[in-house]
């Protein structure tokens, strides 16, 4: 393939603004806020799966925790008519992600699975993506993190340990997606089955509030969940076109 051909080919394939809709998969997640109790199991699952560092109290005090998935708390009203609304907040894998365009070195971009990916070893640490992200779900390694031996033995070998100066964020557990695709290849299947991939948070959620799957597949559980009339996107007015969809909490009358 000649140089010129490669250019024309690239142009042909990618010129349309919506070309990402033709991607192989389009992973998406729904989170039912009516079922989420904010217990935090997903937070620890994420930390365990993705080698998130134990940053220590000092770093927490300075606001440098690394939580790819966090639970946000919003109180409503005053005592005694007070309510707490919780919402798990992680990378929304926006199709129109503000963070992607700003990275000068393409360390974050939209991949063929519709994921907003972060290539740690390409990152030079401008931190602009974290500024551009309205969900504030990008976390920066302010220093090298260590695991006191033998805690290092729990590190997931499928996920790299990020070094200082690198931005990181939720990947939808892309290593599991990759593993599932690998398994599908072994089985001679072309596609991953619905439910075959579950990010750590979805897998562990005690109240099964999270559903993950391919929204290109209309039969998938997540596609059906997306059609729920309760579905909404956080900060949808920013047109980020996110892939994480929340289902509204129900306020029932006694």
């Amino acid at each position, binding site marked *: 393939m000649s140089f010129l051909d490669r250019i024309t080919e690239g142009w042909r394939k990618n010129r349309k603004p919506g070309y990402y809709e033709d991607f192989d998969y389009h992973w998406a997640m729904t989170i039912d806020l009516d079922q989420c109790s904010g217990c935090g*199991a997903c937070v620890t699952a994420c930390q365990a799966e993705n080698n998130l560092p134990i940053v220590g109290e000092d770093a927490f005090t300075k606001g440098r925790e690394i939580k790819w998935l966090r639970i946000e708390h919003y109180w409503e*009203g005053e005592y005694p008519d007070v309510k707490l609304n919780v919402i798990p907040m992680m990378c929304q894998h926006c199709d129109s992600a503000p963070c992607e365009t700003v990275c000068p070195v393409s360390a974050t971009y939209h991949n063929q699975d519709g994921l907003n990916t972060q290539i740690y070893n390409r990152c030079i640490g401008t931190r602009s993506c974290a500024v551009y992200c309205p969900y504030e779900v990008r976390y920066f390694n302010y220093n090298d993190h260590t695991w006191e031996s033998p805690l290092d033995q729990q590190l997931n070998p499928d996920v790299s340990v990020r070094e200082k100066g690198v931005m990181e964020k939720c990947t939808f557990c892309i290593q599991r997606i990759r593993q599932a695709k690998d398994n599908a290849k072994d089985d001679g299947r072309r596609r991953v089955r619905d439910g075959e991939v579950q990010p750590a948070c979805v897998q562990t959620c*005690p109240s099964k509030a999270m*559903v993950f799957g391919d929204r290109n597949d209309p039969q998938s559980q997540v596609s059906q969940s997306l059609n729920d009339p309760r579905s909404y996107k956080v900060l949808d007015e920013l047109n980020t076109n996110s892939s994480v969809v929340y289902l509204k909490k129900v306020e029932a009358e006694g």
Partner: protein
Amino acid sequence: MPNIDRRDFIKLVGAGGVGVGAGVVLRESIKHPKEHLIPHVLAPEDYSSGVATWYNSVCSMCSAGCGISVRTREGRAKKIEGNPSHAVNQGGLCAVGQAGLQVLYNPDRLTGPLLQSANRGSDGFTQITWEDGLTRVASRLDVLRAAGRGNRIALLTRGVGGHLAELLESFAEGVGTDQLHHYDYDHPHALYAANERFFGKQHLPYYDLSNTRHLLSFGADYLAGWLSPVHHSLGFANSRHGGDNRGYFVQIEPRMSPSGAAADEWVPAKPGTEGILALGLAHHIVASGHYEGEDINEWKDVLSAYTLEKVAEETDVSESVLRRLAESFANASPSLAIGGDGAGNNSNGVDTLVAINALNYLAGNVGEVGGVIFNPDPAGATSHSRQANYQTLAQLAESARAGEIDVLILNDVNPVFTMPLASEFKAALAQIPFIVSLSSFIDETSALADVILPSHTYLESWGDAFPEQGVGFSIGAVSQPVIAPLYNTKATGDIVLDLARRIGKPMRWDSTEDCIKDGWNKIYQESDSNTRTESFESFWTALLKAGVWGKKNHLKTDTSRPNANTIASIGVDAPTFSGDAELYPFVLQPYRSGMHDGRAANLPWIQELPDAMTSVVYGSWVEINPKTAKDLGLTEGDLVDIESVEGAVRAPILVYPAIRPDVIAMPIGQGHTNYGRYASNRGANPLEILSPLVDDNSGNVASNATRVKIVATGKHVEIVKTGGKSRDLGRDIVQTTGGDDHTAQTNSIPITVIPT
């Protein structure tokens, strides 16, 4: 070319040399270090480098008995997940369960037997061999046993379920003592007592949250700490999407717990008045004709005092709310009332829980789907009778003080931390001549031991579990080692077996594995044809593979009515509190947060897990109502002393929007003085200042019945929390809907079980 003289030449050579050196250094500095490939001597069958192997086991972080699947790579456990086949948790797992890996890999774990060579509690431990350690212990035991004074040996273990309990039982018998106590701070003694009184069964029933349409939870934090949180979460989620008829959840508690936050309605009744409230509802149900049983008149008699007006006054809940709750509870079918720590750990705790049982009975929820179901046969479940309540431990301390205990064997239990200071438990331990600990860590209690024989973690040893509250039917699971022991430790069962052999009372098993297998063989033999396979061996293999076994034999069995005496005994007194209400204006509610009873405080993931309600990490705090804070002139981070009659603890103020103004709350779990690098000297332990006020019906301390006062210290600290401002300022981040569009069915969760 310029003329190069000698000096120039030297310069050139110098420059070249420096350059070459710099080049070499440059390349060397960017090269990767060499690594080694360490092959096996003999390749294991189920091992392939780079490929994950999963082992099913049982979580032992609390007594809920969730099934886990542990992912291992290259012989190391990498991740704990819920076992999707296990009916209790169906793949879900709480944060503490996942942090079990850090029990295994904790840098503070003991790596071999230790001997206290200095004063007790001084951390003057020296390494000894197993042989040495076991001999020392065995000789002590042997002397006592041989002299027939085996009863001077006391065994205190954490709540051990399954066949390991049988093994310990057998050991106690062997050494000739009946002082075998299981101790868990969170064991629901009051609930057992109340169930025995009302249902005549000293068991935990199955609370079918999944199918209920209306849940009244009296201080039961069922989503976070009560009985089987993961299973309750499943039930909660299922009920919220059980079709058009979405479950309605009411939480009655003075301080909003995570379950209260998830509920549709939070009712901040006065602390300790939950039972009165329940009886008020019962009164309304009976009075308004919702209950039509034959014994209606007896009920009317006993409930006559609990009119809504009076109850409203006593509980500080308006009459209209009470009426509405009673109506909807009675009309919803099925409905369910549960009572947890908040209600049970009061001076009137058992009465309160009996009242809640009565409420269930009156609403027709007993034995019904979506109500309270007793497992017909809690197969293999451990008897509650060995569980030590506060009184038992106080007695143990008393005998220790009296010099009646010669040897104390501790197994992974930390009463020094969870017992109030007023019990003087720690001082009592000092009177015991010889203390052995089988703990994997040095904690406040095992620090007092003379010999520590560190046991395996649950991920390295055999065990099994039969969750008593179950899932509506009998279920059991085997806990198998998923990783070769990291250190020079032994399984608890093996230590006990070894000791038994050494004192000449060998048991009928060779090893823990043997014991577990033996137990399961019995289950296999007794089981019906559904679970029969070709042989026990194939059953065993299949069991280990699936990680769980169950028999779905739930029957609507127990609909028996409480007899007249039972009904007549119903009644809840006003709660009593220690401390003068004038001097000590606030009721302290110590509650269990993410740290469990404190045993998870040494797990960094749990320390770093923001609290479910306040998002605080690494530390303790005191929750007070905004109004109270304003009255006292306190703001977040002001360091205060919480003083009870018994003592004081120091922690910063956290203004908490959802707590009664006359109540303050503190999380349990922090305040360790000696529990490894992650837990030690962090926060405060509210259990220390509890008054030893005991509910005689359960024998347990009424932990919600201590009055305290707040004394400002004038100091200020920064509370470490992840959250910024917890108000959404009209930004619609968490959106809600009250309309009809919530009826769409999405995540209906079928309860499944895969019997082997």
